[in-house]
């Protein structure tokens, strides 16, 4: 009996060594942790339960039958983050470069199936060389199994991908279908075809970092929702993110005791909007002063900075925030901002996270670049996303809400539940100058008349009161009471229920 137990121990030890000391050392030299080290700091101490530790590949091509390592390049299992269950898999770069074989894929799908059944988030840590070429179509089929499960799980459990090394070819599409992708700066990259192929096909000389590094995907392509300095920072931030996320689409948001009074008012918000309507201010100050304890997890911080998205808490419960950022491009809605916000809104709606929207938007960005780039459809994504929401929606207009952008930014008419405006709000089809030049076209030559008309327009339309008089907004609130009013609205809406018409699925303008 003792021998048998010892055999188990020995086999476990062998599996845990992965690709061996040398490869582990090489991994460290590259500034990366091994799969097991990553898991150790991702999950609560001693909570990891590993599956399929002894799985080996079945390939007999190219002498692969002689080269087997238990685990086959991916470590899978489940554990907890602050006591809440999480499923996870971590590619092990020290074993066959983390490449995907048929059995490797089956290990992942087993965990995916388990996560979907047990209704808990799944986190994938990527650091791998793509398909295991020796396995041919079996590897490709393996990817497909994984992809299909990504789609089945979408909207049921949160799926998070963290790219912590190479991620290329077939490997990129599973992360691409998850809810969030995060990357590690300098050590990770993602692309469909690598620099060598790029050079052969297009003659373009480009480095892996320039082609698909964190700096590219977190700022230009929007593939990544965030980039971190190193493995440790990335993984600890995933722990922080999980604390904000519901486990699935039925449980509702997690809750913990808040140290921040929901009745707290903040007089400094009364001066947040500058007297000069063309002067920017930082909308993040409002978010940080409204959320519990100033704790805000921003999503896609460095992409389309003219809109801010992220998670905070009010009364200890998760809330998604969407806010135009006057500091960048005056907070205008362009294609990128619309896509970014639309995806975030849909995530929140799928997982029953209430959404608070702060509006200061001068409109949609004009120009050929935007129109050729499909601004109409991208803008429609955000409109669509908000319109189909069934979660509580609370909207506060702080300053400008002009034109179609007013409608799009969670207006009451597209389904928001509680809509407030600050006294500084200007709700109108457009700003004074443009409006006067159209309405009073005949007076354009007369500077005095135009000035008088402008004043008239400003007094009448650039205020929240016309909208308030007609009920398009529910109340004009003092800026200092914003947190209190939002907290009350969210409490009132906590049991909001909307019956949606039966449909197979919608047809969002992709």
């Amino acid at each position: 009996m003792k021998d048998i137990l010892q055999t188990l121990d020995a086999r476990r030890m062998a599996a845990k060594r992965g690709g061996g000391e040398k490869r582990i050392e090489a991994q460290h030299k590259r500034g990366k942790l091994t799969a097991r080290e990553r898991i150790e700091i991702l999950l609560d101490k001693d909570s990891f339960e590993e599956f399929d530790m002894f799985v080996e590949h079945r390939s007999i091509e190219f002498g692969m039958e002689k080269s087997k390592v238990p685990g086959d390049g991916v470590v899978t299992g489940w554990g907890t983050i602050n006591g809440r269950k999480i499923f996870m898999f971590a590619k092990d770069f020290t074993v066959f470069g983390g490449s995907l074989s048929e059995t490797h894929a089956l290990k992942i799908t087993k965990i995916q199936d388990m996560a979907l059944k047990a209704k808990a988030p799944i986190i994938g840590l990527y650091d791998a060389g793509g398909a295991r070429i020796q396995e041919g179509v079996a590897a490709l089929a393996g990817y497909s199994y994984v992809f299909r499960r990504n789609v089945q799980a979408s909207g049921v459990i949160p799926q998070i991908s963290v790219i912590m090394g190479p991620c290329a070819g077939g490997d990129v599409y599973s992360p691409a279908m998850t809810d969030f992708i995060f990357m590690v700066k300098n050590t990770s990259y993602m692309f469909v075809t690598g620099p060598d192929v790029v050079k052969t096909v297009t003659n373009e000389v480009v480095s892996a970092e320039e082609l698909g590094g964190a700096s590219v995907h977190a700022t230009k392509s929007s593939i990544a929702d965030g980039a971190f300095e190193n493995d440790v920072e990335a993984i600890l931030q995933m722990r922080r993110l999980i604390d904000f996320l519901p486990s699935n689409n039925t449980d509702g948001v997690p809750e913990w005791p808040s140290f921040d009074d929901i009745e707290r008012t903040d007089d400094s918000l009364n001066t947040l909007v500058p007297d000069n309507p063309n002067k920017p201010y930082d909308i993040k100050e409002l978010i940080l002063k409204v959320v519990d304890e100033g704790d805000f997890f921003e999503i896609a911080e460095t992409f389309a900075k003219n809109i801010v998205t992220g998670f905070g808490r009010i009364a200890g419960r998760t809330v998604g925030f969407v806010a135009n950022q006057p500091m960048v491009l005056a907070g205008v809605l362009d294609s990128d901002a619309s896509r970014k916000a639309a995806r975030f809104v849909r995530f929140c709606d799928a997982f029953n996270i209430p959404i608070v929207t702060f509006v200061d938007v001068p409109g949609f960005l004009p120009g050929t670049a935007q129109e050729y780039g499909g601004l109409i459809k991208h803008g429609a994504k955000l409109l669509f996303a908000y319109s189909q929401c069934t979660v509580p929606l609370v909207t506060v207009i702080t300053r400008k809400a002009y034109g179609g952008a007013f409608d799009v930014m969670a207006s009451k008419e597209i389904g928001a539940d509680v809509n407030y405006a600050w006294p500084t709000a200007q709700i109108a089809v457009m700003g004074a100058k443009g409006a006067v030049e159209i309405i009073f076209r005949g007076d354009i030559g007369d500077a005095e008349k135009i000035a008088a008309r402008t004043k008239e327009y400003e007094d009448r339309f650039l205020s929240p009161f016309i909208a308030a008089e007609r009920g398009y907004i529910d109340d004009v609130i003092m800026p200092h009471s914003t947190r209190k009013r939002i907290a009350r609205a969210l409490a009132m809406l906590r049991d909001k229920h909307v019956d949606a018409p039966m449909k197979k699925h919608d047809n969002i303008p992709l």
Partner: protein
Amino acid sequence: MFKRILIANRGEIACRIIRSARRMGIETVAVYSEADRDALHVVMADEAVPIGAPPAAETYLVIEKIVEACRKSGAEAVHPGYGFLSERAEFPRALADAGVVFIGPNPGAIAAMGDKIESKKAAAKAGVSTVPGFLGVIEDDRHAVKIAGEIGYPVIIKASAGGGGKGMRIAHSSAQVVEGFNLAKAEAKASFGDDRVFIEKFIVDPRHIEIQVLGDKHGNVIHLGERECSIQRRNQKVIEEAPSPLLDEITRRKMGEQAVALAKAVNYDSAGTIEFVAGQDKSFYFLEMNTRLQVEHPVTELITGIDLVEQMIRIAAGEKLPIAQKDVTLTGWAIESRVYAEDPFRNFLPSIGRLVKYRPPAEISRNDVTVRNDTGVCEGGEITVHYDPMIAKLVTHGPSRVAAIEAHAHALDAFYIDGIRHNIPFLSTLMGHARWRAGNLSTGFIAEEFPKGFTARAPEGEIARRLAAVAAAIDHVLGERKRQISGQLNGRPVAREGGRAVWLDRDEILLDVSRDGDAITVCFVDAGEGAGKAHRLLSRWVPGQPVWQGTLDGHPIAIQVRPITNGFRLAHQGCEVAISVFTKTEAAAARLMPVVSAADNGKKLLCPMPGLVVSIAVTEGQEVKAGETLAIIEAMKMQNVLRAEQDGTVKTIAAVPGATLAVDALILEFA
């Protein structure tokens, strides 16, 4: 007494005057420029009168506008504060013409003391000690030696026509006088075509000491002791105290008597200050008289218990001084530091912007310690380019100098400002400076102690441990809450190791942390003194609060907490450091992480402050030497020259002249 007074000022001093007036039952009227519409003094006053566009030259400095505001608001008297119109003799005259009382000295006194030469003559006539010297023609070197002997060494020989250090010699002996006299003469001749020189006493390591006087309209004048303001940066006072650590009772009385004599000689009838330069040997010489309330008046108020603003108002209303000289007692010690919107890490460049957070320490008076904060701003306020960058004066009072300094250091630790750069790290560092604590001051203090400017200090020793302990306690509170999140698996609670590796940047301190009732206990596990000893931390801090206030082993401490990714930035006693609290497993992993060098920024010239690009002095591809001018940025109406820190080649230029840049915006990049 007046029913209603107007304050012809802004900022902290306007607020401070309103406070005294209100306590006396007097209504207050504020004036404000467009930039000050939401300013604290406007909010505090009973009535506020707008006086125009932001620049001071169009508002606070315009006599007619103030007179008009008095007429509009029905104010019977005007307090000018300091600066602006406070020392303009024509201001009280214009007010008098409009039938409004000026809360300050009579115009004659202002005029008499406003002129540097006239005031010196008046001082000498009143028997005030002035810098000894010989202003006549010096015949030859023998004559010079004779004069120097009479004055006493060291002496300074200066060219009469001179300036800029040319033709200037310091002499400590007769031989040096002979040599210096001839050299100075020759240099003066060469530089200015005029070889006349004069000799004056040279004061080594001078100190700035001033006497507060108070006179009424009935011929009574008293003095309220001295203030020492030797801690100055480029002639701008930074820290003031009362009394002076230099003076003894006899010198104090002599200085006071001379100050009173001068005040009487000019019929002084308000609060005023006679400034002296003092030698380390307690010799003192008249500099000038300020015919107004000084910025640093609160230190005198705290050691005398006399409200100077109240007295100024009473005197202006014709009341007699309520006390005689013999009733004046100096109790304890008071320290004031000036909180400026300027970046101490960037050569004290002015900083503007929104006060996103402004949480001054609580004003308290208990256990012999008083904390007072004269402020003119509030959270959400704006620091603009238009006015003085001083945002507050923190004043503490204690039974002794040490007590006052301790209280001051603690209050600075709790003084939390975000949104703009400020000099609190510098002030905190000064409070802990051994030479300051020893009272061994001179006006050269800052230049001597910080010859290369001010740089951030990494915490060491006791302070490092203190920061590590508090970081661990903060992390513990956060961790306890995390484990109360909903939706946890039933059964086994989350295991949590007690061992922590606290990283101060990359310096590691190992400790064990645990909860013990209301307290959190920390044991340092590394070898060395006190290893294994349990340290108790008690605090009501909860997440979200900007300042951790509590006790560590019974000693009160305040530490500023700013959340950052995976940790906090803690600031304390002038040190600021990014701290991560890791478990041992996390620390082992963190140790494997590559150190990202900050060298990247050395290759970039970033805009040090929000400002306008006046010019770019280099072109792409140009090689530059360290110290060469790269660009000129205008901020706060000041031109700032940005120079190359090291040799290099300009790769790209990102900014164009005329552009407005935010702080840290890229100006140019080196190859």
